[in-house]
């Protein structure tokens, strides 16, 4: 079990209200990702749930019980820190055993759980090493191992992959998703990498300055962003946001078209000059200038495109994929 509810939770540091009243429910077994720009309060929210910070007001419920004032150890949650926070003077085995030792789990049960965690995380060969003798990815796995053996109601991850290189990040991302499939435990995952958010989440919570901008499945956010902020934040490359006449034609203050929903055609409504063309092989990202719509319009063309710097192109947005927003930035249905 691991249902977590936040009701009117707020957090102030001195005079600064970092989290204004916030409501959120994370269902049992869900993989919930918090995303948002730097400084928006993702870590703070996670630490409030963990109990490492006191909430200023509101109620945090875990499995229906009020846990607002419960000390962190009693909440039954396990956290994986960005810096891993392994104990440097203990071997990997002792690190993983530490929470069980503190909880007074019998020795043979400890050994059994360490064994199964080490097998699951490919750590069997490293159990007697110190954290200082491990690579970044291995340390990350030890930190996860230390969390698993507690058999927590929920896992909390604070940007666990941000210290790893790109290739390892992809690998660990898959391992964590795999782990979630296997354990079916609630996981709350903080990241500012939207690829991680899109690929791993059952539910994404987009935050800005402590406010929840939108909650939904990755595809919901992609298909129907509730406002301009979410529209610009989710999706890579970013959605093109166009104001002025082109928007007014669609009865909106702003329209948004994702790069993948603009086609290069022989005779389209928009014209411009190609600036930088990024050839990725599978796709080509064209940065088109001088369309009179926005500074740069980004277009994603499939495959290799024979366009070069300075070529003139004609573009056509796909009508069914145009997002419309009103003057206050909200989506027009």
């Amino acid at each position, binding site marked *: 079990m691991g249902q977590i509810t936040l009701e009117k939770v707020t957090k102030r540091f001195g005079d600064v209200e970092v989290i204004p009243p916030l409501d959120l429910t994370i269902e049992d077994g869900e993989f919930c990702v918090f995303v948002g720009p730097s400084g928006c309060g993702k870590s703070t929210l996670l630490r409030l749930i*963990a*109990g*490492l910070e006191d909430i200023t007001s509101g109620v945090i419920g875990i499995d229906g019980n009020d846990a607002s004032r419960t*000390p*962190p*150890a009693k909440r039954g*949650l*396990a*956290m994986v*820190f*960005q*810096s891993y*926070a*392994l*104990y*440097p*003077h*203990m071997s990997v085995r002792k690190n993983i055993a*530490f*929470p069980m030792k*503190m*909880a007074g789990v019998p020795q043979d049960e400890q050994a059994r759980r360490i064994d199964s965690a080490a097998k699951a995380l490919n750590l069997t060969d490293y159990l007697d090493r110190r954290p200082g003798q491990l690579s970044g990815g291995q340390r990350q796995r030890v930190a996860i191992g*230390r969390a698993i053996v*507690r058999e927590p109601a929920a896992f909390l991850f604070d940007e666990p992959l941000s210290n790893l290189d790109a290739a390892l990040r992809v690998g660990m991302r898959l391992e964590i998703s795999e782990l979630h499939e296997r354990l079916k435990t609630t996981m709350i995952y903080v990241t500012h990498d939207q690829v991680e958010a899109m690929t791993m989440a059952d539910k994404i919570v987009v935050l800005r300055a402590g406010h929840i901008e939108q909650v939904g499945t990755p595809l919901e956010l992609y298909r129907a962003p509730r406002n301009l902020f979410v529209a610009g934040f989710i999706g890579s490359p970013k959605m093109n946001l166009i104001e002025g006449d082109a928007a007014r034609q669609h009865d909106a203050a702003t329209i948004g078209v994702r790069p993948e929903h603009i086609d290069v055609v022989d005779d389209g409504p928009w014209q411009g000059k190609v600036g930088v063309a990024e050839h990725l092989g599978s796709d080509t990202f064209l940065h088109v200038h001088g369309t009179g719509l926005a500074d740069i319009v980004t277009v994603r063309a499939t495959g290799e495109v024979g366009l070069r710097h300075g070529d003139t192109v004609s573009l056509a947005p796909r009508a069914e994929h145009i997002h419309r927003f009103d003057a206050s930035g909200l989506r027009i249905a």
Partner: protein
Amino acid sequence: MATQHSRSAARFMMAPAVILLLGWMLVPLTMTLWFSFRNYFPLRPDRVPGWAGFSNFERFISSSAFWPSVQTTLVIVGGVLVITIVLGVALALLLDQPMWGQGIVRILVIAPFFVMPTVSALVWKNMFMDPTNGLLAHLWRFFGAEPLAWLSEAPTVSIVMIVSWQWLPFATLILLTAVQSLDGEQLEASEMDGASPLSRFYHIILPHLSRAITIVVLIQTIFLLSIFAEIYVTTGGAFGTRTLTYLIFQRVLESQNVGLGSAGGVYAIILANIVAIFLMRIVGKNLDR
């Protein structure tokens, strides 16, 4: 660039300093060794200088004051080490807490280190430990107890107290920087792992401090083996507070026998080395982690 050339240039540049330091150390050491094998009485023209063989060493060690002085030395060094480390860790943890006036409090804590040993011993002797007018005597009387004549009734304890007071700032300072370098996320992780404040101290903080404690122990031992002023000013070596250093001073003073004193100096070197090797064995392994 660590090329062959730059390395030999570096050695050449470093040579003057190394040679100076080596001379600084070797000249007194050699002279001590040399005099310890001689009969040498610079202030007594009636005694003939000459070769003494091992007689100085024999006389020094067979004196009834020798072994008690070694024991006193070890007791004082050990006592001060224990007190400064225990209180130093406690103070460091306390000073690390956010509090009002932190900067001033930290400076105040360091202050005793700036007081000269002679001065601090005098202050303790006359203002704190004096049996009639000392602060401690007043305190004792306030609680209706008979004031203690500290320096004659508990002389070793008194000296340990004075020296600990002087060295506590040093220990606190080094341990405070170590406490501050502890990663906060580690403490938070252990908190989530269910560790009580006590087991957090024992399993996380203390191991983190072990390296700093080692350094404090080694440095303090070196200096504590040679404390002198505190004893000279307070008890003058009476009441069983004669350390090896003090014994050497007395021997040279009372008989003008520089040879005998030098032999004592050589014993002091040997003692210091035994203590150092011993300490390295038990705590030194913390250093190569």
